């Protein structure tokens, strides 16, 4: 029955979804778990991978996880602030991608390598 109802809800278009009802915290919890898991996977990737492009991709994954948590909490409070903040997270992510990729291209030109350890002497 539960499955059928949710399929109906998903299939009946956005109209029903436009009026959010109050959400129990037992529904909120799984979203937060997914968000935490995605964040930490991004962190592991950032720590382990040597390719600078992949490292920046992992920071994007962490942004994404933070955005999911913001939207889930915003839904819990029935407000729009969470979604507004995700817009700003998107802005920062876009700015970060532009800068980071320009830096990567610059560094790649100098050493002909994407490895972060090619710049080992920077660690002082």
């Amino acid at each position, binding site marked *: 029955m539960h499955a059928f109802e949710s399929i109906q809800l998903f299939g009946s278009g956005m109209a029903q979804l436009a009026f959010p009802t109050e959400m129990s915290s037992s*529904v909120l919890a799984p979203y937060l778990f997914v968000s935490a898991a995605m964040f930490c996977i991004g962190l592991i990737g950032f720590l382990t991978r*040597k390719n600078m492009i992949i490292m920046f991709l992992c920071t994007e994954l962490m942004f994404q996880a933070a955005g999911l948590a913001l939207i889930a909490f915003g839904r819990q409070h029935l407000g729009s602030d969470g979604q*507004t903040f995700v817009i700003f997270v998107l802005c*920062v992510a876009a700015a970060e991608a532009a800068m980071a990729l320009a830096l990567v291209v610059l560094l790649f030109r100098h050493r002909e390598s*994407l490895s972060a350890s090619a710049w080992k002497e920077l660690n002082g």
Partner: protein
Amino acid sequence: MEQIISPIALYLICALGAGGIALALPRRSGSKAFEYGGGLLVAVALGGAALALGLRASDAGNPMPNLFFYPFAIIGIGASVRMITHKRPVYSALYFIMTIIASCGMYILLSAEFMAFALIIIYAGAILITYLFVIMLATQAPTGDGDDDLDDVDAVAREPMLASAIGFVLIGLITAAMFGGIGELPEPKLTQAQAADSVLAHLPKKVDKILDREGLLEDGWRVSRDHETGLAMIDVDARTIQIELVEGDSVSATRTLGAQDWPEALAADNIDRLGFNLMNDHPVMIELAGIILLMAMLGATVLARKHTELEEALKAAQARKLGTMFHDDEPQATGGQA
């Protein structure tokens, strides 16, 4: 509310996932078996997490998330694991797009439809394509399909065990702390109807349009506006709407529509509420976002510019050519200067 997931199950799941990722991270010596084994462990951990969360919720009779949450969550986490473990950067970027699309599904379940589509357009459409271009620009093309010809940069991970352990200790701690405090979250300040419709008073033209479409307004009638603020005179709690007849510049009659006339379609949707919140509550942040984007654009242009060094002889020839173009009548003098 009691614990949402039992701590022992949580830590067991974290340990399994950590082992799986540590196995699956790229390494030189291992065969494909490591990757498959790691993937299997992560899958078991994910299944265990879904099971533990579901069992707890149904035990206590609490509502569970929409059934579509589970495939989206599993695809999202699975694709992000594959993203950090794949040896080839292009595949990593493509798996990240998969993660984005899965989390867009979750956004829709959380009734944030606008953000879901904006995320697909901006992230998957713009940012990730830039990443793909840079990957293709900055990576030497591998000569074959095997992993042996890959550079050490992509084929070897740095400290996989330690990093996975740290990451999953963090997952365990965050989740335990979050789930412990989740029952003490304050109730939403607005009721459901207020949250959905509190914006309506600010949108008199939208209200006019909907009432007109529903056939509730005769010719010349419209929703009453407050004289000073210009807000529509709608009582969201009592579900009443005041309407007025306008002749020329003056109001000649007013009437109140009762709760029985409140049309189904009269509601602020996601975009109304989001746009109102953005423009009304955070105007300065829009300016700041604009400045950040402008600075990033300038910075990226300056950083990625190519410094071309021309040889001295070439420079002299160019200068001489320009000189003769501008001073056709005295070629001797410009030639001498160059």
